[in-house]
């Protein structure tokens, strides 16, 4: 197996010592098939055990190891070293406060995710005797691609609107709300609309499209947000132009 020395500039921040983050260079013997996460693991195991970062599955499923790699939001388990030349710059995900080294504070995202109620709110209650909620393959395909979100927050790191207006609910939260709104078994759209069809919700989005470009699961959050805008606009026309409460 071929090995080569790879240089990584890793942003370090120790809240007990540092006033601000600084880069630290590591030279790591790496195998050809390694990803950036493997190099970080090698640093932690053999060079510097004080390095902090999050990871779990190593297969682009858990969404824990998102980082800025050469300025681009990437899953470090999905960023092959062979695709980079020269020194690789590794930083914590942009637009989130740094807790320590490559670990960010994700509280804001988690709070926003809770607010959009990203779970099924059945439109009709059925007893167990009445059987399961039936869904056709066509009904499933309507939202399936949006359900692939792994909450990795890369879309938040890429979104300049979130960077400039931290109150913005952001791409993933609104996409997951849309995913449940599109689900034929769900009846919670009115509750979610009160959160997402607001100035700090979908109307803060100006369709930069960066979220979809960096999404590692091809979820297309930008598409979801534009669809929420179209649906919310139609709601407004129904409420204001049609007689009676037709919402």
């Amino acid at each position: 197996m071929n090995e080569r020395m790879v240089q990584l500039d890793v942003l370090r921040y120790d809240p007990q010592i540092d006033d601000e983050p600084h880069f630290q260079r590591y030279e790591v013997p790496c195998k050809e098939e390694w990803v950036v996460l493997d190099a970080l693991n090698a640093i932690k195991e053999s060079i510097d055990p004080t390095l902090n970062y999050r990871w779990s599955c190593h297969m682009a499923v858990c969404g824990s190891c998102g980082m800025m790699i050469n300025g681009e939001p990437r899953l470090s388990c999905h960023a092959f070293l062979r695709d980079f030349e020269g020194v690789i710059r590794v930083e914590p995900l942009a637009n989130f406060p740094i807790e320590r080294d490559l670990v960010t504070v994700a509280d804001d995202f988690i709070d926003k995710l809770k607010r959009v109620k990203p779970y099924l709110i059945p439109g009709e209650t059925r007893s167990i005797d009445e059987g399961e909620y039936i869904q056709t393959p066509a009904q499933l395909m309507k939202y399936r691609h949006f359900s692939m979100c792994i909450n990795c927050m890369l879309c938040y790191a890429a979104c300049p609107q979130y960077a400039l207006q931290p109150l913005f609910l952001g791409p993933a939260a609104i996409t997951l709300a849309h995913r449940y709104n599109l689900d034929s078994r769900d009846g919670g759209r009115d509750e979610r609309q009160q959160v997402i069809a607001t100035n700090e919700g979908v109307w803060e989005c100006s369709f930069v499209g960066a979220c979809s470009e960096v999404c590692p699961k091809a979820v297309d959050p930008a598409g979801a947000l534009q669809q929420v805008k179209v649906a919310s606009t139609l709601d407004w026309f129904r409420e204001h132009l049609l007689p009676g409460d037709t919402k």
Partner: protein
Amino acid sequence: MSRRPFVRQVSRTRWYFKHSRYLRYMSREVTCVFIGAFALLLLCAVERLSEGQAAYESFLAAITGPWSILGLSIVLIFAVHNAISWFNVTPKALPVQIGEGFLPGRFIVAAHYAAWILISLAVLFFAGVL
């Protein structure tokens, strides 16, 4: 152990230089300035038209000089850039589901170009150019 998260500041005036995709976005957004300017020009045209034939003809003479044509050409370039960049992203906002699949985005984009051409031809026809 006390927490002391570090917040990185984002420049409110230079953030779009950080990545080419942000510059691409800004190039689309800046087109609104030129399209807004052209909308104002159209309003001026309507106002001069309401003042009579002589006023309108002097307005037409004013906007057919070389500098006006250069300015209008720049506006046209930005308007075309605006239309193309928005047409190309319409499949995201208006997906068309057919059974268990989706109509390929290129058909939705093509429909917008077809509508653009037809409406342009209709405008030219009613303007007496065709």
